């Protein structure tokens, strides 16, 4: 239920934010089609206004938009002459692939470092500092550095090689490293708390080794914050993806969004917002599911 409210809220916010933007939308549509930023005469604009109903009162436009949304119709792009749904469906796959790979990579990095270093005085402090640094690294900077070092200088990965798995490595790593820093930070503190728990000692008295205890007992107790964060990360894909897609010249929702905002292609913008809101809903469901899998106690409450 709240999911629907969130969807509606996000869509509405996006719609009105766009409507508030300066400039006449019909003019913009024409200007972009012509590549010249100039004022237009009413005759020039009449066709466009009629085609997209831009002269209707805002509330009427909003109503059209909402009722379209209810029918699952996100409208047509002003510039691409295509349905927004088609554009999104087409661009979602590369972005999702990127994000999911990045989350998986981040988890792998985080798990290894946390399990091996948490609670150890020197290694732990060092790893923690590295995590903070990683978490504070801007995506695009990391991306550029990775691109220059591994693609340009060393030539290990393709520079643009769209679509190939090898081309996914650097972009995913770019998103993964800061995320791993975040995940590591929150997991580490939970991990260290869990390490202090009496049941850890119990396991040790049974003859479990330190590593066994860390992997089999402690880890599970420290996963909840990281899962929550990952849910957020899944939803926050757009912001990260925009940058990474720009640096690595990948297609995807991020670049579609930037172009659409630049072009004031309202149907696309609102469509993407609805999509992201929907992703959040899905991510939240997944997070809840994982939470109760990791901590069955949560299921009852």
């Amino acid at each position, binding site marked *: 239920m709240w999911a629907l409210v*969130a969807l509606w809220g996000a869509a509405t916010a996006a719609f009105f934010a766009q409507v508030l933007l300066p400039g006449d939308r019909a003019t913009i549509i024409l200007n972009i089609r012509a590549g010249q930023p100039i004022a237009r005469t009413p005759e020039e604009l009449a066709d466009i206004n009629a085609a997209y109903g831009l002269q209707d009162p805002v509330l009427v436009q909003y109503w059209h938009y909402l009722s379209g949304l209810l029918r699952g119709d996100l409208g047509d792009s002003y510039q691409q002459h295509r349905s927004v749904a088609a554009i999104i469906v087409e661009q979602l796959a590369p972005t999702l692939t990127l994000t999911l790979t990045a989350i998986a990579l981040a988890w792998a990095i985080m798990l290894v470092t946390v399990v091996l270093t948490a609670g150890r005085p020197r290694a732990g402090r060092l790893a923690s500092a590295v995590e903070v640094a990683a978490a*504070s*690294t*801007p995506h695009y*900077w990391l991306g550029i550095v990775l691109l220059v070092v591994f693609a340009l200088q060393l030539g290990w990965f393709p520079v643009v090689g769209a679509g190939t798995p090898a081309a996914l490595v650097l972009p995913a790593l770019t998103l993964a490293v800061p995320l791993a820093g975040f995940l590591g930070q929150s997991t580490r503190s939970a991990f260290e708390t869990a390490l202090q728990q009496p049941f850890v000692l119990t396991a040790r008295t049974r003859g479990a080794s330190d590593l066994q205890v860390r992997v089999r007992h402690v880890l599970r107790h420290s996963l909840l914050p990281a899962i929550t964060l990952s849910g957020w990360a899944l939803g926050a894909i757009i912001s990260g993806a925009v940058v990474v897609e720009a640096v690595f010249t990948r297609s995807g929702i*991020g670049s579609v*969004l930037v172009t659409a*905002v630049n072009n004031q292609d309202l149907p696309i913008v609102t469509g*993407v917002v609805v999509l992201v*809101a929907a992703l959040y809903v899905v991510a939240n469901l997944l997070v809840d599911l994982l939470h109760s899998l990791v901590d069955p106690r949560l299921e009852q409450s």
Partner: protein
Amino acid sequence: MLTVVGIALVAPAALATHDPYALDLGASLQPPGGEHLLGTDVAGRDLWSRVVWGARPALAIGVGAAATSLVLAVVLGVLAALGPRLVAGAVDRVIEVLFSFPSLLLALLLVALLGPSAWTQALAVGIGTAPGYARIIRGQVRAVRSAPYVEAAVALGHTRARILRQHVLPNALRPLVAIAALSVGQSIVWASSLSFLGLGVAPPSPEWGALLDAGRAYVTHAWWLTVVPGVVVVALALAATTVGNHLQAALERSEA
């Protein structure tokens, strides 16, 4: 590190060796060393001096964004946790909607509305990061609200307002100090991402994000233009985070 930043903020002229804006067309793209400590950009401007002068706008954005974000977060978080049922419910939804709204889109829209500037950046980053903090604060307030010491205060016969003022708010907002420091660092990182997308401060301002963006075109020829501002941004974010952690630890110790 912090002293250098401090000086750069108060008296950049003391640290800078050159005018950060002065062109020196004869000294285009000089590598670090010699007259130019950290090299020059394509127009021959001294990078070190630009980085020094850039600390002010960069930090202004960081602090401005952190302040915006925290004020918003406190208002939303406290309302969502303590407001009358209807209000709390509504604010709760607002937080979730904001949270699910792509923050970058928000920034794009704000920039489109207000034009690119330091203020826009601070506002965009502030609003973008507020929902996350609002959630933390909401959780804190809720946790504190049901803490045994709050019940103890009820049992002592204190009024709601007094309990709120004496116990709930101070304790719930205590982690804010640390969060604030963290958020300054994160905001700078965020803001520099916006600059990268061309939504930043107007050039020729030496704001760090803008420097980074400008250096990108020369990354294979003049690495220093990318590496230096990048390292500076990371270092400052790191410093802010470390300060935040220490503050938090100090707070906890003062309790213990």
